[in-house]
């Protein structure tokens, strides 16, 4: 499944990284602790979080994550979106909670391997 498929099926808002939407997605990780994502996130995963500050971009870039999903209707800080476009990290948004988003995404078949 690609990001574009997920954006359509989950009705996600696109905040940054519009050139990267054909990326493949393999599973996801939900956490608001940066070190946890650094330790346990994997390449090509969706990262589900409520953190919106610019440091999330470095984490996503280092781990080569497919995209950052902001939950609860949160919007990225202005500097975060600028940096995301520069580093080509898609930031997407949903009004759902982390639990609901993860459950529905898992149901769509976004699972590990």
């Amino acid at each position, binding site marked *: 499944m690609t990001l574009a498929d997920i954006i359509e099926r989950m009705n996600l808002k696109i905040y940054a990284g519009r050139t990267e939407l054909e990326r493949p997605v393999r599973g996801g990780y939900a956490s*608001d*602790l*940066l*070190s*946890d994502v*650094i*330790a346990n996130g994997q390449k090509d995963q969706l990262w589900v*979080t409520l*953190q919106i*500050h*610019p*440091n*999330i*971009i*470095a*984490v996503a*870039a*280092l*781990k080569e994550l497919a995209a950052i999903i902001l939950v609860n209707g949160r919007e990225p800080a202005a*500097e975060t979106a600028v940096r995301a476009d520069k*580093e080509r990290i898609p930031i997407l948004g949903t009004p759902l909670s982390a639990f609901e988003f993860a459950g529905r995404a898992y149901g769509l078949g976004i699972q590990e391997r």
Partner: protein
Amino acid sequence: MMTEISFQQEFEIKGGDFVRAGEASCEIKNLLKELGVAMQVVRRAAIVSYEAEMNVIMYAGSGRLDLSVTSDRVQIVVDDRGPGIEDVELAMSEGYSTATPEMRELGFGAGMGLPNIKRNSDIFKIHSKVGRGTRLEMTIRTNGHRL
């Protein structure tokens, strides 16, 4: 036969500079990739350098990161002029953190930094003096991985 490579670079890290946080680590990751270091090693080095860089940014006034690469290992040494760590054993335990509430709100201070560094290093050394600073030495072997 592995290709002989030898590379060295220094990075200055400014304490409290959350705006540029992670830049050194991203640069290190890109450098190692360009050098042809195995991806498995690059990933571990990225984790190690990120956590060490963030520790300097969160707790120290300034610090320096030295990256050196040879055919059989990647070494990352971080020296900071920070407050030092009173109880290193405690600081090494999973979940322990001295981060401020403000840092925790941003998702830092999970108490996973030093454990993450140790887990991803083949050799890990930590020296700390209260009031002077902390020095971390991390070695990741590239043996057995094609460069």
